[in-house]
C-alpha cells in the first residue's frame, strides 16, 4: 500500500526563482489497485515518481509504504518494497549483460546479495516461465546480450524484471511507449493480471488515453503539481480518449 500525504517539492533555479513542482499532493493506492497517472508534460509526473522511489526527497510531506513511514529513507532501503520500470529502456537494463544476468540481478532486488553462484537451473526455469508470459520469444534468448534486443523488447524485459521480486509497490513509467499495438496490449494485460494476482499497489504514467481508460481501476489527473481530478468505475469507463485528453489539458482548479 502506498500513501502520499501533503507532498511539496520545489526547485530553486538560478536567479533565485522558486518553482513549485508538487503542491500539497495527496494520493493513496491500495494493494491490488492499478492507478493510471495522466497529465501534460511538465505537470510533475516524473518528479512524483522520483519522490516515491527515493531518488528525490520532498521539501514537505510524508510517504508511507504499508503504513510505515519511509520519507527519509534511502533508495536502496525502499527497493525492498518498490520496483520501478523506467521510460527509457536503455536506462532500465544493462546492455552488456545477458537477459539471464539482468534477471538474476533483478531477482535479488532489495535482498542481501550472497556469494551464491548466479547459474542455477531452478532460476533458469523461473526466468523462462516469466518471459514466456510476454509471448515475444524472449525465453529462448536468455543467454543473449541485452543490447541485441530491440527497444520494445528491452522495455518488456524491464517489466518482467520489475515483477520478479516480491515488491508490493510498482511504478511504471510509460512502459508501452516503444511497443507496437499488439505488444502493448500483451504487456498491459500482463501488468493488469500480475497486479491483481499479487496484490501490488501500482501507479502507471501514460500518455495513451485509450489504455488509461481500458485498463486499471482509477485515473488520476495531475495538473499544476496536485491531483486535479479522479475518475473511477463507470465514470472512467464511459470516457472517450478525446474527452480525457481535453479534460487533462483544460482543467481549471
Amino acid at each position, binding site marked *: 500500500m502506498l500513501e502520499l500525504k501533503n507532498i511539496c517539492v520545489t526547485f530553486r533555479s538560478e536567479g533565485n526563482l522558486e518553482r513549485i513542482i508538487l503542491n500539497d499532493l495527496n494520493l493513496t493506492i491500495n494493494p491490488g489497485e492499478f492507478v493510471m497517472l495522466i497529465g501534460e508534460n511538465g505537470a510533475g509526473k516524473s518528479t512524483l515518481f522520483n519522490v516515491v522511489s527515493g531518488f528525490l526527497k520532498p521539501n514537505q510531506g510524508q510517504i508511507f509504504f504499508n503504513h510505515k513511514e519511509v520519507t527519509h529513507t534511502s533508495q536502496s532501503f525502499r527497493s525492498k518494497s518498490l520496483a520501478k520500470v523506467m521510460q527509457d529502456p536503455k536506462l532500465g537494463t*544493462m546492455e552488456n*549483460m545477458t537477459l539471464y544476468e539482468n534477471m538474476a540481478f533483478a531477482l*535479488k532486488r532489495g535482498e542481501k*546479495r550472497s556469494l551464491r553462484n548466479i547459474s542455477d537451473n531452478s532460476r533458469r526455469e523461473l526466468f523462462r516461465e516469466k518471459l514466456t508470459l510476454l509471448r515475444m520469444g524472449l525465453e529462448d534468448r536468455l543467454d543473449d546480450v541485452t543490447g541485441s534486443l530491440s527497444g520494445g523488447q528491452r522495455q518488456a524485459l524491464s517489466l518482467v524484471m520489475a515483477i520478479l521480486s516480491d515488491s508490493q509497490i510498482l511504478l511504471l513509467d510509460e512502459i508501452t511507449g516503444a511497443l507496437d499495438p499488439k505488444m502493448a496490449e500483451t504487456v498491459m494485460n500482463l501488468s493488469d493480471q500480475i497486479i491483481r494476482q499479487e496484490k501490488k499497489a501500482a501507479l502507471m504514467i501514460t500518455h495513451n488515453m485509450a489504455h488509461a481508460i481500458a485498463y486499471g481501476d482509477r485515473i488520476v489527473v495531475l495538473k499544476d503539481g496536485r491531483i486535479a481530478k479522479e475518475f473511477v468505475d463507470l465514470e472512467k469507463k464511459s470516457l472517450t480518449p478525446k474527452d480525457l485528453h481535453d479534460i487533462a489539458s483544460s482543467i481549471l482548479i
Partner: protein
Amino acid sequence: MSLAEVVLSLEMGMIYGIVAMGIYFTFRVIDFPDLTCDGSFVLGACVSGVMIKAGYNPLLSLLIALLSGAISGVFTGILNTKLKITNLLSGILMAFMLYSINLKIMGGSPNITLMEDVTIFTNLDPLLTLGLICLLVWCLCGYTLSTDFGLALRSIGQNKRVALNGGVNVERMTILGLALGNSLIAFGGGLLSQHQGFVDVGSGVGTIIIGLASLMIGEKVFPFRSPWWGGLACIVGSVIYRLFISFALHSDTLGFETQDLNLITGLLVIGAMVLPRRHLC
C-alpha cells in the same frame, strides 16, 4: 631469447597479471578509473618486505600486504563517496600520500634488500609457485564475480541507475570494489619484491601503464564478456607484454640502441591493438 628469459617473462607476467586483475576490478568491473595503484603496489612491497626482514612467515607477509592494499582502496573510496572528490583525483591523492606512508613503513629507508632472508621463493620453484598462486587468484576472482554479490559489483560499472533501482548501495559497493582491486595490486607488489629480492620505494611508478597495457592486450586476445575470460585476459596479456619487452631488449642486433626500447615496446603493443578483432562469442 634464451629459455631463462622466457621463464622470467612468464614469472613477471604472472605477477603483473595479478596486478592487472586488480586494475580490471576497478577500471572494468566498477568502472572507476583508479590511480591508487602506483601507491598500493609499493605499499604491498613495503609491508611484505618489512615483515620478512623482521622474520615473519613470507606467506603471512603476503596476506598482510593484501590487507594493506584493501585498506588503501577503502580510503580512496571514502575520498570519493563521502568527501565527494572526483574518482581520478581520489586515486591520485591516495597514491601521492602513500609515497610518504611507504617510506615511513620502511623506517625512512627507500630501499631494503631481501637477499639473505626467507621469502616465499626460497625453497620453492618460482615458476610453479607463481603458477599456482595465479591459478588460485584467477579462480577466486572468477567465482566471486559470478555470484549475486559479483553481479551487484558489475552492475555499478554497467549502469548506475539500474544498480540503484536494484537496491544496490552504490557507495558501499564502490568502496568494496576499490578494496578488492587494490588488495590484488598490493599482493602483486609483495610478490614482486620477494621475487626480485629487494624493495624499492620508486618501483611503483608506471604500474598503471603496465597494468592497462596488459589488460588491453589480453582483451584483444580474449574479447569475451565473462569475468572468467576477463581474469585470463589479464594474465595472458601481462605475459605477452613482458615477452614484448624481452624481445625488444634484443633489438640491438637489429641496429637499435638501448634508448629505443620504449619505442620498440610501444610499437609492438600498437601492433597487438590493431590486430583484427575476433567476433564476440
